[in-house]
């Protein structure tokens, strides 16, 4: 969870067009043949499948229902592959499959919404700070610094305890935790793009600030933003699950993958599937975003070169 914050420092920079010419919107052509294409497509397919699966949650039965036959004679959860319970049961005899798919629904919902909100806040702050320089920028960036210096988990716990649990609470918490690094990156890029010729020209022509930002600066950041968006999505899901794991987020018995991980951790010795099943689904959710992010990131990159030193 901690490491993903640093991800975009390593290569999310957008390739640049000519200095004096505004960017034309090149269509997204033949994604599979470009570098990173297969990853991007795989990620999108994976994400789509997970979303579809989670939407079908009601079909799998109730996640809260306790099956009277759900435990073995010793009171242990049924393993995966047992009749009637494809993924086994948990310590209370509830069907793992139903719980997992419903949990997936919650995790994805929170993740996607929180991704959008944290990106929105971060992008807006970053654009404003980077475009309107001066003390305004400094104040905003100091706030960003403060948010970046506070320990993530702790703040998450604190804010969650104020706002309360439940999906809305987590969304707010995660947004508060994750807008800052996007803001910093967007600020850096905006400040860089601001000195371009066409921006200066627009300013001289007295085009209003917001219009300049929208028309001349944002389009050039599109691949950076996409990259950030994907990685942010991955990070957000991890944090959301993590907070639920710590008990600060979605409360049981409502299933959520993080909370189920917490449950599973106590029973993992005798019933490893109770841990592994939510773990795998959490992993897949994050993987989808990471694949999309990496796939996007590869598209703009230099092709790898053969070493000089192999001569």
């Amino acid at each position, binding site marked *: 969870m901690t490491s993903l914050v640093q991800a975009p420092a390593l290569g999310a920079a957008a390739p640049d067009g000519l200095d004096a010419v505004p960017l034309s919107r090149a269509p997204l052509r033949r994604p599979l043949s470009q570098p990173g294409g297969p990853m991007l497509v795989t990620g999108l397919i994976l994400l789509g499948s997970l979303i579809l699966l989670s939407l079908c949650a009601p079909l799998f039965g109730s996640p809260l229902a306790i099956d009277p036959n759900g435990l073995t004679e010793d009171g242990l959860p049924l393993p995966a592959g047992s009749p009637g319970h494809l993924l086994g049961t948990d310590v209370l005899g509830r069907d793992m499959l139903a719980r997992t798919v419903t949990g997936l629904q919650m995790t994805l919902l929170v993740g996607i919404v929180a991704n959008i909100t944290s990106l929105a806040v971060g992008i807006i702050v970053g654009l404003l700070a980077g475009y309107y320089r001066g003390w305004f920028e400094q104040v905003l960036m100091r706030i960003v610094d403060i948010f970046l210096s506070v320990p993530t988990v702790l703040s998450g716990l604190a804010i969650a305890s104020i706002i309360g649990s439940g999906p809305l609470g987590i969304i707010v918490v995660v947004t508060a935790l994750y807008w800052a690094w996007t803001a910093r990156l967007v600020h850096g890029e905006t400040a860089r793009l601001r000195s371009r010729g066409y921006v200066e020209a627009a300013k001289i022509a007295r085009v209003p600030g917001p219009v300049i930002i929208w028309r001349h600066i944002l389009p050039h950041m599109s691949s950076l933003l996409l990259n950030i968006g994907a990685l942010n999505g991955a990070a957000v899901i991890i944090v959301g699950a993590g907070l639920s794991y710590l008990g600060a987020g979605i409360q049981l018995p409502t299933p959520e993958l993080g909370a189920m991980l917490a449950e599973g951790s106590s029973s993992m010795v005798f019933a490893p599937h109770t841990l592994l099943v939510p773990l795998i689904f959490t*992993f897949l959710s994050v993987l989808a975003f990471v694949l999309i992010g990496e796939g996007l990131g590869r598209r703009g990159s230099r092709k790898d070169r053969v070493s000089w030193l192999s001569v």
Partner: protein
Amino acid sequence: MALRIGRRFLFGAITVFGVILLTFVLQFVVPGDPARSIAGPRASPEVLEEIRQQLGLDQPLLVQLGNYLGAVFTGNLGYSYSFDQPVSQVIFERLPATVWLALLAFAIELAIGAVWGSWEAMRGRRSALLTTVNVGLLSMPTFALGFLLLLLFGYVLQWAPIEGGTVWANVILPALTLGLLGAPYYAAAVRDGMITSLGSPYLRTAVSKGLTRPVIVRRHMVRNVTAPIITLAGMDIALFLSGVVFVEQIFAWPGLGQLQVVAFQNVDRPLLTGTVIIAAIAVVLFGVLTDGARALIDPRVRTGE
């Protein structure tokens, strides 16, 4: 350049100050009564009131803030009632464990990342296997990997002890977890740095002088690759020092992260604020150190923006 460092310090101080302020304010918004926490659920209102007076909680907010700031500046971070010790002492006792973990994890991720990144760079092509590993590690939440390793090495293979055992045995799994998770970033930094370096004209000049490969790598490539790694390392270590809660929880490692959770659960405000301040200072400090290190390595940074 002195101006730059001065500015960084100033901003850093402002940041830390802001963090202190924010934490202070948050304390009063976060539900939980420290007095009740100390006294227990069945204490009478008079006892609670007395405790509050002792803690100075009955004073107006600004006065409390002022008192606190004054105390912090003299190095007094308050008294932790859950540990019955001064906060600074509690933190001090836990610091070595955190530093140990941080350094070992850093060593692991740097080692793995450097070998991985340079191998891929020299090879010239991304290997499908390593790309899969890369993506896999990036998608793994901290606690997930922690659990997996605990399951694997602790229970299945029984290589590492679940409890008891020497310090080394106990630290290796959490360090490995953090190290594996951080390795892709270092690998990417090394790989990108080396590829940039390998494609640069100045490397062609070096080759044209007829230098041998080890000399070229040592004299012309290492320093050029180190700069992005330093930036990464600075942020990384600062984050480690801010407390890696999940890993410490899973492996029961007594570091600052666990401290934070305990403080939170007990509403031990002084301890809470204390750990947050330490974390903020760590982040700011490493920011400045990183800046300085980069200026040391890259002369272009020194003479201008």
